[in-house]
């Protein structure tokens, strides 16, 4: 089967890939717009830790969302197969 004929079968997975990528870029834009702009005063070290902490939380949330959606899409397969039975 040719690559172009296979692609329509993969729409859902490609959609998930695109969503994962888009949310990651969105989080980076958010970090750039909000977190990077936080002034370092009055406690530069504390603020730096806070910035890294919030950024890591956002990246962690992204990873969890990715995990959840992958699980959800894959689970829907099981449900549809059980319904068939």
């Amino acid at each position: 089967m040719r690559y172009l004929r296979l692609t329509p079968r993969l729409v859902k997975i490609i959609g998930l890939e695109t969503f994962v990528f888009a949310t990651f870029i969105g989080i980076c834009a958010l970090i750039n717009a909000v977190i990077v702009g936080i002034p370092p005063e009055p406690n530069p070290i504390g603020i730096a830790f806070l910035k890294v902490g919030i950024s890591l939380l956002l990246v962690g949330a992204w990873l969890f969302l990715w995990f959840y959606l992958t699980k959800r899409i894959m689970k829907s397969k099981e449900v549809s197969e059980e319904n068939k039975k």
Partner: protein
Amino acid sequence: MATAIAPIVIYVISLLVPLILTFVGIPFHIKYMQQRGIFGVDIHKKEQPKVAEMGGIIVLLSIILTSLLLIIIIKDSDIRLTVGIFCITITIAGIIGLVDDFFRLSAIIKPLLLLLASIPIIASGRYIPEPFLPFVGKTRLTIIYIVLLPFVIAVPSNSVNMLDVFNGSMATATILVLFAVFFANMIIFRNGYSELDLTYVFIFIMIGTLIAFWIFNRYPARVFAGDTGSLTVGAALGAIAVMGQLEVVMIIAMIPFIMNSFGIISSVKGLLERREMVRPTRMTSDWKIESTGDPKAPITLVGLIIKKGALHEKDVVKSINILTFISGVFAIITAVLIRIVV
């Protein structure tokens, strides 16, 4: 960084030497393994052929020999050390794979041991704890980076291992990832040919050896990579990400691999070896791959691909390639977004 030999020559050597070594070495390996009776049955074929196992040994040896050759011909001691560290890192992963191929490590022990593969990089300080993020540019993580670094090696290794299930799937998908990372490196760092960039060297070594390996591993496979091969290749991807400051780009390029791992881990609720899981696929009467529909079976990327109907093995591999190609394009877009601010 000054070297006695022109960088372009080093790049050519990095690509051609592992390619030739693997291309020449694999037929001997196949013959040796068949004589010793070390083979796996290719269950996705009607004839159920016996295919030589552990082709990854030749991949690993090609990388080691090429690294040694580079260490000999490059005069700069700093570059030599970096090449050596790359080689040691993936050799550790390869040895863990070899032990697993022979003695079958548990699903918990294997990833734990893979965490050790990052020790040479941490000990030698061959990393910059400043990963690049799109829009943000360079970030500074220091302590957190060292904590996360072992996972940057162990996660790709396991992810590649989990997707190495069909003829040629591991080789083609990782070649696509490497091409994406190659272009991303070019975009982010804009290095010309006048100075040696070791990230290109490592990418060329991997592409060279994987192209030669693919020739023997493509449908119908004459050799399987085994855990030796998949863990070696996965660790190399991780090492390239860390040593080339391409962590984020690598994660994006490897989305299908990570998605597959997420699915398996979430569905079996933990880490299990392939042989301990219920088979998620079976063969149809016309030798296509279809889902077993067993609720106890792990949910895999392949399961999603064949959701709309049974597919031939070659088409499943093509589907994995389509998904990896798209994630590769996303990785290149990520590089462009990083470049805007760097």
